[in-house]
């Protein structure tokens, strides 16, 4: 399933398909912007020294999109940014694949860096998306237990 929220300055997508970083950059680039900050999350091959085989992402899609919209709105309220894009994967991801891309374009770099950092940090705290780490000998929902 793919959900796309499109406005002139915001794009949010949840997708089971491979994310395309260049498409993300192309969407936020604009003549009035002097800088684009891009955060790309990638699937790491180990957690706390233990080999990870793959990750599985699940989203409460309707609510996740709503929460992502709130975060993008907050970014526009806090910093002079021109365009914000968030793409997030769901489903099964192999090592090295990309679960998340955040791209922010602004007239000047400080706003782009700060907003991009804020978006990924807040996404990890509030957006109802979950990842399960699959190991050779078991699986764990990340952050579920203290």
């Amino acid at each position: 399933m793919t959900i796309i929220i499109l406005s002139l300055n915001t794009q949010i997508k949840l997708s089971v398909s491979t994310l395309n970083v260049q498409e993300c950059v192309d969407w936020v680039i604009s003549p009035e912007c002097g800088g684009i900050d891009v955060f790309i999350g990638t699937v790491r091959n180990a957690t706390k020294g233990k080999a990870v085989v793959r990750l599985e992402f699940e989203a409460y899609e309707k609510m996740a999109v709503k929460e992502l919209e709130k975060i993008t709105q907050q970014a526009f309220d806090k910093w002079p940014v021109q365009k914000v894009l968030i793409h997030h994967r769901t489903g099964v991801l192999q090592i090295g694949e990309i679960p998340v891309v955040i791209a922010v374009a602004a007239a000047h770099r400080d706003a782009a860096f700060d907003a991009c950092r804020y978006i990924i940090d807040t996404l990890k705290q509030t957006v109802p998306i979950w990842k399960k780490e699959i190991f050779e000998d078991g699986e764990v929902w990340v952050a579920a237990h203290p």
Partner: protein
Amino acid sequence: MNVNILAFGIAKDIFGGPSVSLDLANDANISNLKYLLEQQYPRLKKLATYMVAVNNEYALDGDTIHERDEIAIIPPVSGG
């Protein structure tokens, strides 16, 4: 009233499926719901924390539940 509760992530494992139905008093709030669920599914209490969402928004313990609300259990999120 009878409500249907959606489960995601580890909550789905705890409930043994993507949703459960529960009988609640007509004026029940989130805290009543959590109490009943924790009686039936004690593993919920072992989670680092969990939230309840009503109609796609995080709810507070004192919020009242209505019959047709979309209720979901939100275990600790781990996107990104």
